[in-house]
Structure formats: structure tokens, C-alpha cells
């Protein structure tokens, strides 16, 4: 579904991503794990065209993305939940969700998706009229996910959904990610919390200083000695 081949990203003189290649297949949960600054977010931003890549190709559903402007990616079915949620805090919860469906026209389908999102996140339904800025951290993460789902994506990319959340909320969010995946959305997950990410993912890639150093089945990586030592802490 998504195929990234040999992309390189530079920030000024800094070579942030070196020949990154990986792929995500329909229906999978794929996770990218690695330390802070390893380049996980850069990969998502390169796919979303928020940062340009200097060489290499990104193909999504058999279409090369390099000529596609950032704002057209959403209508192709690619949606990103950014790191740190980035709500439109002066807009209401409902307006935020509407912004998620910015590129869509079919109102009936949108309504359907809205109901679907509320069934996953009943707390958002209680707060539709509230300004997004007044939500708690966990609720904001839910809204960010709901907002991304409103575009009815084929591939949902999530950047550090667990960041700054309490253990109990992390669990809840990861359960919902699994549910969403079961309902047919492919997920690309970037996580610090390697333990959680590996336990729900089917496959994983390990990143270190802008390079992919390991890939494989999530279950295998969970047992891999190097990975355990570096990212799982034992």
C-alpha cells in the first residue's frame, strides 16, 4: 500500500534520513521505533510532504507522491495524527472534526464517520461544543485521532500517540488503535513506547540516527536481545 524507497532528507546541512526504505501493506499495523531524534517524525513528515525529500520515491496505492502537493494527500487517503496533537484549540471539538473532513463532499458519509468516531470516543460526543483547547491531554489525543479519521483514510499515520499520557490512558488509546485497525484502516505507528507499539503491531522497523537498522515481525523484535536491551530496558 505504502512503499518508501531510499529517501533522503536534509535539514540544511544535517543529513536527517539516510536511504530509508520500508513498506506498509493493506490491513497491517506497522510501527517505527527508535530513540528520540532517530528520525521517526521526519519520516512521517516526508510522507506527508511537510518536509521535502531530496532523493528516493514514496509510492502510495501505486501512485508516486513526489509531484503531489501536501494538501492533496488527504483526499488520496493518507492522514497523519501529528506529534503533540496540535488541536485547533480555539475551535470547538465539532469544528475540529469538520476540519478533518475538509476535503470531503459527501455529507451523509461524513455523518456516518462522525457516528463511528463517537462510538470509539464517547467522551468526544459529550464535548462537541467545547473548545478543543479546554480538553485534557487524553481527550486531545482522542480528538486528534478522531480528526484524522474524519478524512476516512486508507492509511492512518500516528506520531507518538502515547506521549505525555498516563499508563491507563496509553492502554486505552492503544486499544482503540487496534479497534480502528480491525475495522479496516491500515496503521503506521511511530512510537517511543516500544513495548506498547510492538505488542499491537504486526511488523516493525527499528531506527537509529536516521537509518533503519533492523526490521521484522513485531513479535520477533519483542524477543530480540538487541532491541530488548536498547528499547525495552531489559
Amino acid at each position, binding site marked *: 500500500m505504502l512503499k518508501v524507497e531510499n529517501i533522503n532528507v536534509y535539514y540544511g546541512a544535517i543529513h536527517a534520513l539516510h536511504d530509508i526504505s520500508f513498506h506498509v501493506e493493506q490491513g497491517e499495523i506497522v510501527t517505527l521505533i527508535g530513540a528520540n531524534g532517530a528520525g521517526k517524525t521526519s519520516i512521517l513528515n516526508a510522507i*506527508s510532504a511537510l518536509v521535502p525529500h531530496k532523493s528516493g520515491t514514496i509510492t502510495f496505492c501505486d501512485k508516486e507522491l513526489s509531484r503531489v502537493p*501536501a494538501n*492533496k494527500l488527504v483526499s488520496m487517503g493518507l492522514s497523519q495524527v501529528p506529534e503533540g496533537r496540535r488541536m*485547533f484549540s480555539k*475551535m470547538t471539538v465539532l469544528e475540529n472534526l469538520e*476540519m478533518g473532513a475538509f*476535503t470531503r463532499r459527501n455529507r451523509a458519509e461524513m455523518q456516518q464517520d462522525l457516528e463511528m468516531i463517537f462510538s470509539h470516543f464517547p467522551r468526544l460526543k459529550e464535548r462537541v461544543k467545547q473548545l478543543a483547547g479546554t480538553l485534557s491531554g487524553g481527550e486531545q489525543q482522542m480528538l486528534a485521532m478522531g480528526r484524522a479519521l474524519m478524512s476516512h483514510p486508507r492509511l492512518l499515520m500516528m506520531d507518538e500517540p502515547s506521549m505525555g499520557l498516563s499508563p491507563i490512558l496509553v492502554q486505552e488509546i492503544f486499544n482503540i488503535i487496534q479497534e480502528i485497525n480491525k475495522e479496516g484502516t491500515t496503521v503506521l505507528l511511530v512510537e517511543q513506547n516500544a513495548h506498547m507499539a510492538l505488542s499491537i503491531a504486526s511488523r516493525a522497523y527499528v531506527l537509529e540516527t536516521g537509518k533503519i537498522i533492523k526490521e521484522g515481525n513485531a513479535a520477533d523484535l519483542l524477543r530480540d536481545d538487541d532491541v530488548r536491551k536498547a528499547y525495552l530496558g531489559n
Partner: protein
Amino acid sequence: MLFLNQLINGLHIGSIYALIALGYTMVYGIVKLINFAHGDIIMVGAYVSLILITDAHVPFYLAVPVTMAFCALLGVLIERLAYKPLRSAPRISALITAIGVSMFLQNLAQQIFTATPRPYPTVFTVAPIVIGKLSINFLTVLTVSVSIVLMIALQAFVRLTKTGKAMRAVSEDMGAAQLMGINVNNTISITFAIGSALAAIGAILYSLNYPLISPTMGSLPGLKAFIAAVFGGIGILPGAMIGGFVMGIAESLTKGFISTQLPDAVVYGILIVMLLVKPAGLLGKRTSEKV
């Protein structure tokens, strides 16, 4: 009676300030830039409409939309050429660029039209409306009502339409807006276009009231409107409107009752007091940085 007259004068000029202030506030809201060149858009609008009406003999009702279109285009052009390359640069660089653009427009106008002021034609020769002892100029009625209608329309546009919501989204978080599929560049262009078109109307209304056109004529109303925008809370549309009226009325009351020398000082004084009492302006919410 004098008081009422001055109040009406204040409303008249205040509604023009408000129209111009909307442009400042919209642009600030979306790109966080004090667009110093906005005042000079007024000057361009005045010259374009003047040429259309007196030199090209275009009827007034046609000259207005053409002037608006011209200014809108100019606004978009300025943004694309001068501000867009600096979007990720330090904000003060963009500010200096805006100052540079302002100086450029003024001096370009001076090259083309010379520094000698030109008279603006009288378009409306309608008799004043007399209510008892009070006589209200037709121009005043027109100016105030046009401004109010435009402000309401703009407010509705930003609150209700998809483009308006996109503008709000971009002003909060450009990157997140892009992830929603919003075309950020176009949205910013639209903002500059609307702001500049409103300035064009402001320019025509201003010129009808003060019918002398010169290359530096935009500075003063520009500065006042800018102060109005800050007074009301920059980035907030209703704030700009209230600010415009407050500044207009304060100015005209000072002229009428205190001294013709002091209106500027009073206007600045009001702004200073407001900022000291409410640092983010009348309707602004102070967003203290999260620690």
C-alpha cells in the same frame, strides 16, 4: 449639539479605520505579521480609483470593484513575492520586509505621480439629512452603513464558510491545517486579498472625506487603523471593529473639545492605557506561555 456632531464625525472616520483595521488583524491572525504595507494599499487604492474616475471616466459604481480587484491582486502579489519567502525566517525579518515594501510603494508612487497632492473628485452631491438641528452628511451615512454591512459579512464568512474555517485553522496551526488537506498558500492569499479589498473600499471612503491624494497619504490612517486593531485585540475581527470606532470617536472628540494638536497623542494614550490594563487588547485573551 456639538458633541453629537463630533460623535457622528467620529463614527464616520472610525468606521473607515475599522475597515482598514480588519485587514491588519486578518493578516496578523494568519501570518503573525504586522503588515506595514497595508496603509500604502490605501494610497494605491486612492490613486487607482482617482485615475479610473477622473482620467478614464469610468462610472463610480464600476470603479469601486475594479479598485478592489486591483488592491486585492496587489496584496496577494506582495505576500507571494516579499513575505512568503520569509515565512520560516525570524519574525522581525518579515517585519523589516513589510517596512521595506511600505517604503517601496510610497516611493514608487512618488516616481509615478510626483509628491504634489491631487484632488479627489466629489462623487456624491446629495443634500445632508437634517434631523432637527442635527445635519448628517450623506457620505457619513454611506460610510458607516457600508462599513457595518461589510464587517457583518466578513464575520459571517469567517465563522460559517469552509474557506473561513480554513483561515481560522491556518491561523492556529499551519502544519496541522496542511495535514487536514487545506491549501495553506491559497488560504493565506485569500486572506491578503480580502484584507486588501477592504482597504480599497476604506481608501475610497477616506478619499471622499479627505479629498487630497498623495503618496504618503496611507501612513496616517494606516497607523491609526493598526492601533485600532491592537486596541481591540489583534487577530480578533470584532476587536478591530470596536477599536476602529473607539479611535475615530476619541480623535474627533479631542479635536472638538480639547485641542486640534492633540488627537494623535490621545489616540496613543488610549492604546497605552489599554495595553497596560489588558495586555492583549480589549477582546484579546492573554495566552500566558505554558511552563
